[in-house]
């Protein structure tokens, strides 16, 4: 592989790579605002300027400049090299690029920083971006000087509503045009552009339109400064109090890699952010997915119920066990869930096949929705393929078949995971007993005789297999609320209450059992290219 030299580092590159791209791929950051690995090159922020040494035997391209002599205050003729933006500069074999090691680059970056901050309101204390703002980070790294301009700053519109989800502050904006390019190139809806020129520049929404496509929060997320802010996150949290786990979006079968940000002090989720994975979601997530984190706190069951009565978890498990003990295996059906992880489904499948001895396996899922040709998949369940793989040669039948069997009187008892359903489920009222293990309220919950509160994906670690067949791990963020427990744990407890020797104390116990089953996939630990909380791409 050809390579070039960046400061003292040898950076390999693929033909066609730009210097910044090749450096980014091996994890070396050249300071930048407007460049984004997933967007076209604009080269307008000038932060990534680098010095390139001339080829051997050739003179450097030098510019004549006047430089102020600090002792006399006089301007004296001097020379400096012509710097080039690393985002636009194609890498070439043996190239000698100087980034951190060049005093000229350091000077240029300081100057760029100073210019970008000339009219900035410096309202960091009330800015949501504070703590993960490039203006802040780069001020520390590359400028560090006080403001010299004494003139009144240019004032521009603040708190402009761009659409239902996004608010724009033109004074904080550095016109990097990442949002403009994102809307055009990724969301395929060129609803933003730049108006005016020079220091009157501001981002504008198309007349008669709102910023309302399916990727508005991503439009906000690509903003390297606090100009675009999300209504959902605005004034909710300071990012330095948040912690992140590497999760997988539960919104559809695409399985976008995400960071789930939460506050450990109040065990509350605050946002979902994309995590770079070029095989799945590249750098992006859709609005639906980025807001999906809110579901973890909504319509929850956090204690066990027997009928309408709230009971302790132990009483709930015992009630579930006695409900299942009274039935013959052929009258009992077990419903797996495309909403739950491989671990949860494996636990239920093991209980059903190996202990309860029923072969009546079904799967429930959320009804299908729209695909958008970008990221969103029509299958709104994160683990459909995972459940199918688990079941191997005897795939689970759809919920509709179960309802028919109940109508026909063949099934009298059901043990089900999750409360979602792809169809009307009135036939469930003919059941003698429905034992439901679910984190959320849903169509099935109304028919449950015994309900055990499961942990959400945010409260337990698990493996999800996306529509491409990629097994991905989603990590636990917060502790399960109140009596909620990971579903595999509840299933283990239920098995023990039924008198079976199931000893799953930890997730690793379940995974050890899964290791002997070729259909049961456990994802390798997730990768994280980006810093958990901080200036992400």
């Amino acid at each position: 592989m050809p390579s070039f030299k960046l400061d003292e580092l040898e950076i390999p590159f693929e033909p066609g790579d730009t210097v910044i791209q090749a450096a980014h791929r091996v994890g070396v950051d050249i300071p930048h605002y407007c460049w984004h690995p997933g967007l076209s090159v604009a080269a307008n922020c000038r932060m990534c300027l680098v010095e390139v040494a001339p080829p051997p035997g050739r003179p450097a391209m030098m510019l004549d400049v006047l430089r102020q002599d600090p002792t006399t205050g006089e301007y004296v003729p001097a020379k400096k090299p012509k710097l080039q933006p690393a985002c636009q500069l194609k890498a070439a074999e043996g190239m000698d690029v100087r980034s951190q090691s060049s005093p000229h680059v350091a000077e240029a970056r300081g100057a760029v920083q100073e210019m970008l901050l000339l009219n900035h309101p410096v309202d960091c204390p009330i800015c949501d971006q504070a703590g993960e703002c490039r203006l802040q980070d780069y001020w520390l790294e590359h400028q560090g000087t006080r403001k010299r301009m004494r003139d009144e700053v240019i004032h521009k519109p603040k708190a402009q509503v761009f659409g239902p989800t996004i608010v724009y502050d033109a004074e904080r904006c550095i016109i990097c045009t990442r949002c403009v390019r994102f809307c055009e190139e990724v969301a395929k809806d060129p609803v933003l552009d730049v108006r005016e020129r020079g220091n009157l520049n501001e981002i504008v929404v198309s007349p008669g339109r709102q910023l309302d496509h399916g990727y508005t929060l991503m439009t906000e997320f690509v903003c390297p400064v606090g100009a675009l802010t999300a209504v959902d996150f605005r004034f909710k949290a300071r990012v330095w109090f948040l912690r992140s786990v590497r999760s997988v979006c539960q919104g559809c079968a695409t399985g976008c890699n995400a960071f789930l940000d939460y506050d450990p002090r109040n065990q509350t989720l605050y946002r979902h952010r994309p995590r770079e994975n070029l095989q799945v979601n590249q750098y992006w997530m859709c609005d639906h997915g980025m807001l999906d984190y809110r579901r973890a706190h909504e319509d929850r069951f956090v204690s066990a119920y027997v009928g309408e009565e709230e009971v302790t978890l132990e009483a709930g498990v015992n009630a579930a066990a006695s409900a299942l003990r009274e039935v013959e295996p052929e009258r009992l059906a077990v419903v797996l869930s495309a909403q739950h992880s491989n671990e949860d489904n494996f636990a239920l499948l093991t209980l059903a096949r190996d202990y309860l001895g029923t072969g009546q396996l079904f799967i429930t899922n959320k009804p299908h929705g729209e695909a958008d040709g970008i990221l969103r998949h029509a299958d709104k369940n994160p683990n459909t393929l995972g459940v199918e793989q688990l079941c191997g040669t005897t795939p689970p039948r759809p919920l509709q078949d179960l309802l028919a069997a109940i109508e026909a009187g063949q099934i009298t008892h059901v043990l089900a995971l999750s409360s979602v359903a792809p169809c009307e489920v009135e036939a469930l009222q003919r059941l003698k007993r429905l034992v439901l293990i679910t984190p959320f309220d849903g169509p099935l919950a109304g028919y449950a005789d015994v309900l055990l509160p499961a942990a959400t994906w945010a409260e337990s670690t698990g493996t999800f297999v996306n529509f491409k067949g990629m097994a991905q791990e989603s990590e636990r963020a917060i502790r399960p609320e109140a009596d909620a427990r990971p579903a595999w744990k509840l299933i283990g407890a239920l098995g023990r209450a039924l008198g079976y020797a199931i000893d799953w104390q930890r997730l690793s116990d379940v995974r050890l059992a899964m290791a002997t089953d070729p259909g049961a996939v456990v994802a390798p630990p997730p990768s994280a290219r980006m810093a958990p909380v901080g200036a992400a791409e």
Partner: protein
Amino acid sequence: MAFSLNEAQEREFEDILARYPNQMAACIPALHFCQDANENWVSPEVIQFVAERLSLPTAHVLGVVTFYTLFNQEKPGKHQVWVCRTLSCALRGSEEILAHCEKRLGVHAGGTTQNGRITLRTAECLASCGSAPMMQVDKDYYENLTIEQVDQILDRLMQEA
């Protein structure tokens, strides 16, 4: 009120589009043509019209219109007067000419007279330094100006039918 072109204008508009390799390249000439056809200003309806005809995002056309000062975003007077104030003209008395115009018309540079006849503006170099001081009225240059000549020009503009 929606903006539209008459048949003859339509033909000319199509002719403009045909001169450029792609429609985005025709944006500025198309806007100039429509501005002339719309009492010298680019109304939101004109922006919409150009965006639709050139298959460009409306925001892009708005960006072009706001970037260039020669597109009027508000309706100007019947005539537009630009007084050059760059070096050669400044040395030859453009300041007096501008001050005189402002006094005569009762508006500051950038304003439009109350009767809506004249919009007075300043301009940076209009490339007629050899005949300074000069000003541009609509699309014509008036060069080697004296205060008397300026008065004659303004009188004519104010009085003509």
